[in-house]
C-alpha cells in the first residue's frame, strides 16, 4: 500500500474511532436521561421495610 493511502487509512481510522466513541456515550446518555420507573424505588422501600439481614440468626420478632 502506498504511503499516502496508509496515511489516509490511519486518519480515517482515528476519525471513525472518535466518532464511534461519541456515539457509544450518547447511547448511554440516552438511557441515563430517562426517568427511573417508580417500581425500583418502591421495591427497595419494600425490601428495606420487610427484610431482616440475611446473616442474622436471631429469630424474627413479629410483634413490636
Amino acid at each position: 500500500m502506498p504511503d499516502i493511502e496508509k496515511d489516509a487509512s490511519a486518519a480515517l481510522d482515528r476519525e471513525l474511532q472518535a466518532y464511534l466513541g461519541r456515539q457509544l456515550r450518547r447511547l448511554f446518555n440516552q438511557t441515563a436521561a430517562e426517568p427511573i420507573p417508580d417500581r425500583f424505588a418502591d421495591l427497595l422501600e419494600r425490601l428495606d421495610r420487610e427484610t431482616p439481614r440475611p446473616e442474622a440468626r436471631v429469630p424474627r420478632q413479629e410483634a413490636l
Partner: protein
Amino acid sequence: MEEIQRPDPGFKSALLAEISQLRFFALSLTGHHDRADDLVQETLIKAWAAQHRFTPGSSLRAWLFTIMRNTFYSDYRKLRREVQDRDGDSAARLFANPEQNGHLDLDDLKIALAKLPEDQRVAVLLVGASGLSYEEAAQICGCALGTIKSRVNRARQKLMAHLAIESAAEFGGEFLAIAGSGGSASGEAA
C-alpha cells in the same frame, strides 16, 4: 434486637444511585426495555439478599453488574432465544424504546451493535458506553483482561466498518473525502 436486624440504610441509597447504570447494562444484555427492567428488578432483589457479602469500599457497580450478568445467563438467555425466534427481527430493535423516538442518528449504531456476537457487544458497551475500566469489565464477565481487550478491539473494528459505510452519506462524504485525498490529515499530499 429489631435495630440490629435492620439492613444498612446507606445500602438502599447506594443501590438507587446505580439504577441508571443497571438499566443500561440490562439493555446491553437483553436488548429490550421491558425485559431489561425485569432484569434490573431481579438483580436488586438478589443484591439486597446478598448485601452482607458485599465488601465495603469495593466497586458496588462491578458487584451489581456481576450479579446481573449471572442472573441473565442463568434465567434470561433461554427466554430471549425463544422470543427472538418468534419475533425474527428483534436484532433491529435492540435498544429501541417504544415510548420515545430516541435519536435517529443512533439507529445505525444500534443495528451494528445488534449484529455483534453477544460477548463482544457486552464488552464494548461496558468499556465504551458505561465507562467501566477494562479490569472491571473482565471481573464482571469472568474472563482474563486480555480477553476483554481483544473483544473490545474486535467489536470496535466491526462497528467502525459498519459506521463508515452508513455514515458516509450523512457526513456528506467527509470520511470518504479523507480516504480519497489522504492529504488533509497527514499533510503529505503531493
